[in-house]
């Protein structure tokens, strides 16, 4: 059977009677039996529960009860999110497994209400901050484009699971780029929503004020379908913001792919350009040509306080992470993976005054970038998501693995929404990614620009060599 590639095509196939949710889920589990030992997508599979949910979804559709685009769609969940099926490991030996006893958070509950079929818990890095660690009893996530390359992280299994066709969508989390980096490396589309748009309850914290939950799928349309369900305040997360519901699918389809009236700011800060490969920059220029062809205008701009925001975000999230882990680090130092404990312990080296200054930089940067977008009448900003394609596990170039080649963290520090989507391949045949950043709570604009691009290109449909 040819499995559908996207949520959109699967939703059509389900309603046309070309497939069933049960057949879809069964086929993807069968593919995982073959591919997962190499790719390291799953930490736990929920075969039995998922098939029950799939049969229920099929029965409801047959009875005319249609819950919308996610009805019967297989969705995976990063294993720092609590689910009814449990357990939650955070891919760590330190984690108290009873933390996951709280069951579904509001986002998981909403996805189930929308008919999504939760297929299992997916690999990450330890507490979303470590790295692939062969010394621990967990799978090593590998890239379906080349298993000698890393998936990126920390939503590693969400990235390679969707890219290899073992599920049609996944929940990821993003504190410094952890949705967008694996989306970029694995050649899929991932969206970090505006901070406060999607409630975080049920997510194990890394950096309280930097954490975001978001969708990872093949396309911007699929991300919009998931965001339709995920967005909206919940009383269990007081940082989530009450606002009128937005139909993100309707918003991206509203102008029939036209970008007339959309003005795009190309970020040309020296620190972005100097940490981006020439082929990545050229791929972005090619993508901009496509967007201009759709009616957009472009202008080069520099984001104010960009370098300071990059630094403040890393320092701040280390301090926040340390606050959570301090007591465990004191009592269970050696149970953490070495990179995890060293990174978290860096938070002990940052003073209270330093942290407040990080917050001042965030606030000033947020205000100044917003003002710049208003002054230049910019709908969105763009940059490469990563300066380079997926890194080798061993022997990668220094430039490619530099934290400066990540063009993501600033948007965690400011909370602006940021969409990552495929825009080409590097000389080694690995995916390259475009990042589209919108003003706060204008996620629909970023998704609409991404959708317009994907209507004119097919990079988001490129098939990795290791694929179901």
């Amino acid at each position, binding site marked *: 059977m040819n499995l559908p590639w996207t949520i959109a095509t699967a939703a059509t196939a389900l309603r046309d009677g070309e497939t069933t949710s049960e057949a879809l889920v069964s086929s993807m589990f069968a593919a995982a039996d073959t591919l997962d030992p190499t790719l390291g997508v799953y930490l736990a599979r929920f075969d039995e529960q998922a098939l029950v949910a799939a049969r229920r979804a099929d029965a409801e559709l047959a009875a005319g009860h249609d819950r919308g685009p996610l009805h019967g769609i297989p969705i995976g969940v990063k294993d720092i999110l609590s689910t009814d099926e449990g357990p939650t490991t955070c891919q760590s030996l330190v984690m108290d497994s009873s933390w996951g006893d709280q069951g579904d958070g509001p986002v998981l509950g909403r996805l189930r209400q929308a008919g999504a079929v939760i297929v299992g818990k997916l690999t990450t890095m330890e507490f979303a901050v470590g790295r692939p660690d062969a010394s621990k009893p967990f799978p090593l996530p590998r890239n379906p484009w080349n298993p000698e390359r890393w998936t990126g992280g920390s939503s590693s299994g969400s990235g390679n699971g969707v890219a290899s066709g073992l599920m049609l969508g996944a929940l990821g989390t993003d504190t410094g780029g952890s949705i967008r980096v694996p989306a970029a490396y694995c050649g899929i589309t991932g969206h970090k929503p505006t901070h406060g748009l999607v409630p975080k309850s049920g997510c194990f914290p890394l950096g309280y004020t930097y954490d975001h939950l978001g969708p990872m799928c093949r396309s911007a349309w699929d991300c919009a379908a998931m965001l339709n369900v995920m967005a909206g305040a919940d009383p269990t997360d007081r940082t989530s913001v009450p606002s009128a519901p937005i139909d993100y699918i309707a918003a991206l389809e509203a102008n029939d792919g036209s970008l007339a009236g959309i003005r795009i700011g190309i970020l040309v800060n020296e620190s972005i350009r100097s940490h981006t490969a020439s082929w990545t920059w050229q791929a972005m220029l090619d993508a901009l040509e496509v967007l201009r062809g759709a009616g957009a205008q472009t202008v080069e701009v520099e984001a104010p306080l960009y370098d300071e925001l990059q630094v403040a975000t890393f320092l701040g999230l280390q301090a926040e992470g340390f606050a959570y882990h301090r007591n465990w680090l004191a009592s269970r130092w050696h149970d953490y993976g070495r990179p995890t404990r*060293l990174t978290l312990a860096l938070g002990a080296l940052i003073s209270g005054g330093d942290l407040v200054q990080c917050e001042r930089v965030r606030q000033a940067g*947020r205000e100044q970038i917003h003002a710049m977008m208003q002054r230049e009448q910019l709908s969105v900003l763009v940059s490469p998501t990563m300066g380079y394609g997926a890194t080798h596990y061993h022997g990668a170039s220094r430039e490619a693995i530099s934290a400066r080649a990540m063009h993501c963290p600033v948007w965690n520090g400011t909370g602006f929404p940021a969409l990552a989507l495929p825009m080409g391949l590097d000389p080694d045949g690995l995916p390259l990614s475009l990042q589209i950043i919108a003003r706060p709570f204008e996620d629909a604009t970023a998704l609409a620009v991404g959708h317009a691009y994907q209507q004119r290109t097919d990079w988001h449909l490129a098939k990795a060599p290791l694929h179901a």
Partner: protein
Amino acid sequence: MAHRRLALLVGPPRLLFGGTILPTDTVVDVPSVTAENLTIVQALLDASGLQPPPEEVERLAELYGPIRRQLAMIHAADVGNVDPSNVFRSGDIRS
């Protein structure tokens, strides 16, 4: 007692920051370690009740040099009279 050195990393890759790895077999310029940084780092770890082995204290002291430079950068940033208190309260960043 400042010193710099080139090292060939063997064994597991090292982490720079959340989500970014420094893989094995990569020749890197290891940041300098000063006696001052080593003393400060040891004191701060002690104050938090952390007891890493000496080689990991030294690694944190290596990383502390770049962190001090980063902290100097953010304290030198022109942020005017910005009040950051709403960062801690509400997720609403529209205003």
